[in-house]
């Protein structure tokens, strides 16, 4: 048994050495989210790290009216290593309507014959990538948390209570990447070329974008913050959520919430951490008045250090917390703020 294990590891090693030294690298396409004003959407850096773990040359596609600014930004290497940036500037794909973005991705795919098409597992990525996969008649592999090889990936199922290793024999692997499981590896000063590409989105349904309401916040983005403070039902009243915000501001962190208080209307939906909300893996997560339902734990249990303050000693959150205080959150919080100011 030991002998065969050793043999196998030697084999894996040589296979890997062969593939990296080979000139036949695979091309892969990362679809970036472009926000209004040409700002790059969340998770691109983490997605580029995952894409570069596949033995591939990575091109990034940007589209929308403000794509050119995003293209320049990405070509600098700020988010990670890229071979080139494909700029599909067009008014047609304004606001990233899926029906219009999908054909632009398929156009790039036709030109570049990519083996992998990849996005971040953000709302943008989740909306676009399965449509692209279906149009290519291939499976999509969403929420990839580990790249094992060019065709083998690990993803969470059952709210992260099990990890599935999946293999795809499809000619094109279509993936979305779970940001919390990949670091950002900038390649500053890279100076990758920006190529203008055509953006044909004719023959698609006439979906019309009407309006949006985006919450403006000075705080760091929840999905990539190094400190996250989250609040739950144990805070009792909506106005008590201010405690979460004060602690987050004191620590320079982001603010999150459980589904229960999102549903109760205390805070906006995009603050929800969990299986169906955002997945975070900060250096420090602090849960205030959170019991720790399976669905919430799915979104934060990969945090480096977990702190829980809850009056119920039996609360499931204590099974994952590195440091717990069993106590009244309203009594502990003022003390905690005072200690932090020392």
């Amino acid at each position, binding site marked *: 048994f030991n002998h065969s294990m050793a043999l196998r590891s030697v084999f894996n090693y040589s296979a890997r050495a062969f593939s990296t030294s080979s000139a036949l690298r695979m091309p892969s396409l990362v679809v970036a989210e472009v926000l209004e004003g040409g700002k790059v959407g969340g998770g691109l850096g983490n997605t580029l790290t995952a894409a570069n773990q596949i033995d591939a040359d990575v091109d990034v596609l940007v589209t929308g009216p403000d794509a050119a600014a995003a293209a320049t930004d990405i070509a600098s290497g700020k988010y990670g290593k890229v071979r080139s940036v494909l700029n599909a500037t067009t008014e047609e794909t304004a606001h990233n309507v899926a029906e219009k973005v999908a054909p632009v991705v398929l156009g790039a795919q036709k030109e570049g014959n990519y083996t992998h098409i990849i996005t971040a597992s953000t*709302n943008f990525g989740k909306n676009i990538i399965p449509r692209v996969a*279906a*149009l290519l008649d291939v499976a999509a592999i969403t929420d990839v948390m580990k790249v094992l090889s060019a065709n083998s990936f690990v993803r969470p199922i059952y709210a992260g209570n099990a990890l599935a290793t999946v293999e795809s*024999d499809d000619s094109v692997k279509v993936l979305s990447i779970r940001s919390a499981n990949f670091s950002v590896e900038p390649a500053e000063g890279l100076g990758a070329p920006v190529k203008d590409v055509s953006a044909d989105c004719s023959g698609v349904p006439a979906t019309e974008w009407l309006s949006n309401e985006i919450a403006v916040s000075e705080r760091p983005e929840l999905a990539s913050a190094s400190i996250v403070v989250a609040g739950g039902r144990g805070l009792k009243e909506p106005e008590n959520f201010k405690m979460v915000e004060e602690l987050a501001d004191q620590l320079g962190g982001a603010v999150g919430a459980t589904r229960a208080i999102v549903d109760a209307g205390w805070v906006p939906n995009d603050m929800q951490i969990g299986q169906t909300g955002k997945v975070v893996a900060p250096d420090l997560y602090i849960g205030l008045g959170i019991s720790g339902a399976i669905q919430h734990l799915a979104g934060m249990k990969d945090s480096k*250090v*977990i702190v829980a303050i809850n009056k119920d000693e039996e609360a499931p959150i204590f099974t994952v917390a590195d440091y717990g205080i069993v106590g009244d959150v309203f009594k502990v919080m003022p003390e905690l703020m005072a200690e932090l100011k020392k």
Partner: protein
Amino acid sequence: MKVLVGVKRVIDYAVKIRVKPDQTGVETANVKMSMNPFCEIAVEEAVRMKEKKIAKEIVAVSVGPKQNEDVLRTALAMGADRAVHVVYDGETQPLGVAKTLKALIEKENPEVVMLGKQSIDDDFNQTGQMLAGIMNWPQATFANSVEKDGDSLVVGRDIDGGEEKLKVPLPAVVTADLRLNEPRYVKLPNIVKAKKKPLEPLTPADLGVELMGKLKTVKVEEPPTRQAGIKVADAAELVNKLKNEAKVL
């Protein structure tokens, strides 16, 4: 307007799942099963459309083994008019289900297909988008509000950072987010009535679809468990530990 609503039978959301020792999957024998929570929201929205006289008929569909009849009966008890059950014992994957729904659309000609945004077992979040893609229909995913406006739907969507509104021409695919509505409890008389509503069994062969998934699950494992933590007495000790032991402050 006719609405097709997809429902999936999954392990109940409150169950702590167990990975099989041979790593082939998750234990489903003798485990409480229910309708996927997002599918419940999709059914509720369809029923509300009917109550608002926007929808005329609601057809609930499910793809899966014999036992999926349970969730179809639940959908009928919530207010669906009839059900179609595509009986299939193998593993279902989003692309295969999307193709099955396409075949059912060709048979039933609905104007709207309502689905949940994801099922809480495989957590894929794909089927609605895939169906919209292969139908070349508009998609309104992660919907938090749905209103009819002439020959279109105006749908509010949850997006990163906030929300947006789209106007999608019919026919269209809509996937429900948690905030869309609060599903009703089914009352006993409705459960009794649901038993008399039509439920049509079909096979994938009847629809000319191949459900065999192309994605291969090599193994299913338990996630790494976290080491047991400690309880500290007060805020002072907590801050001290975070600064000097965990070194995160």
